């Protein structure tokens, strides 16, 4: 919880927030959303109001993958979707942070669509590098998911007071480099954020982690820092990624970074194996390493609550 004790460069200090929060016991709950204190009224009322909005993240379904690490990636995607359907509270929508397919084949996209649509939720996609390796390098993805997007498929939308931004960092990767957003997308992002108030909670999602998780394996985004600089003035920023097929979280100032599990196969922890290739684990361990994430936003709270749910265990 050390992040709570640090003063932020701009906005109200975390210590202040905690001080305000202690008043909750006396009846009025004060909290801070993006540096702006908000009264949520008396406790009972506050509890009623803060039921919040929940959305889901699924990632790296790799439909078409059939290697020893998981011979049936479509089957485990279906298990994940069944988990979504069984949730007691219906999520507002779903985001998919890329690598829908393994080889960008028509049938893989069709199969993925068939299963994912069973959740009966709106799904907001961003592509992974495996989704744009068709002959026309991304056309198939854009034909399916690129409606109302810019460039290689980036876009933003608002829901329940939260501003969501889907970024693409898997196109035109350069030898020796990491993920790339590119100047055109960064210019678009700057413009997209311009009209937003600093108190608006922001959720950014992209396939490859925007921060450098492990450079040796290419797990990071070369110009991710430029995107984060544009997000600096906001009081609540949540960055959701996939690509590394394991849960990783870090908090830096107002920004929470989180990566979701894959629904297809696990990958090793950074540096723990000769390469980041699919990790074969005993059959009874596999579903403990696959899963989905649910993210809940409660009005008035800075941090979104992220809960990772494995397929099993």
């Amino acid at each position, binding site marked *: 919880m050390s992040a709570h004790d640090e003063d932020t460069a701009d906005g109200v200090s975390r210590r202040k927030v905690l001080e305000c929060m202690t008043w909750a016991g006396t009846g009025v709950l004060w909290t801070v959303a993006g540096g702006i204190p908000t009264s949520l009224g008396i406790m009972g009322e506050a509890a009623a109001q803060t039921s919040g909005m929940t959305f889901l993240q699924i990632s790296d379904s790799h439909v078409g993958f059939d*290697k*020893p*690490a998981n011979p049936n990636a479509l089957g485990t995607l279906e298990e994940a979707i069944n988990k979504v359907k069984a949730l007691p509270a219906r999520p507002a929508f779903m985001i998919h942070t890329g690598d829908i397919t*393994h*080889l*960008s084949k028509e049938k893989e996209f069709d199969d993925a669509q068939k299963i994912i649509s069973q959740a009966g939720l709106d799904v907001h996609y961003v592509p992974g*590098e*495996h989704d744009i*390796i068709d*002959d026309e390098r991304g056309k198939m993805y854009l034909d399916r998911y690129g409606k109302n997007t810019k460039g290689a498929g980036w876009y933003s939308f608002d829901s329940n007071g939260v501003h969501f931004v889907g970024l693409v960092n898997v196109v035109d*990767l*350069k*030898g*020796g*480099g*990491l993920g790339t957003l590119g100047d055109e997308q960064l210019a678009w992002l700057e413009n997209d954020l311009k009209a937003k108030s600093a108190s608006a909670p922001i959720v950014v999602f992209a396939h490859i982690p925007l921060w450098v998780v492990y*450079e*040796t*394996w*290419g797990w990071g985004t070369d110009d991710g820092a430029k995107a984060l600089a544009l997000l600096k003035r906001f009081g609540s920023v949540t960055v959701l990624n996939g690509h590394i097929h394991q849960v990783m979280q870090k908090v830096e100032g107002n920004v929470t970074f989180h990566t979701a599990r894959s629904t297809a196969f696990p990958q090793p922890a950074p540096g723990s194996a*000769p*390469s*980041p*290739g*699919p990790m074969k684990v005993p059959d009874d361990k596999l579903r403990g390493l696959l899963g989905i994430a649910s993210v809940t936003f409660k009005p008035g709270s800075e941090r979104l609550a992220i809960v990772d749910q494995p397929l099993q265990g």
Partner: protein
Amino acid sequence: MKIHDVRRGAFAAALLLGLALGLASAAHAEEIEVKIDNFTFAPRTLTVKAGTTVTWINEDDIPHTVVSTGHFRSKPLDTGDRFTFTFTTAGSFQYFCSLHPHMQASITVEATTGSLNSH
């Protein structure tokens, strides 16, 4: 692997023969394999004569590509898939995997006109 070794052996024999006789190399086509395993190209650096055909074989459980910007670009290679390119001109060719760009390697192609003794 075996074929590869046999070819390398044959090449070494030819090289020794060429050196022994002090003759210029014959401009015959060579074939060389590059393995893709554990997210690396092996060998990572390679020097070949112009006219050499190089075949990349993906032995990983994940697809890779072989891309040399402006020169060649393979389709995604699934496990066991191959990509072949014949180098006709001398030069240095840097290449990488466009899916995992930290995977880099290079091939130097030498003109066939030089004598074997020059290197």
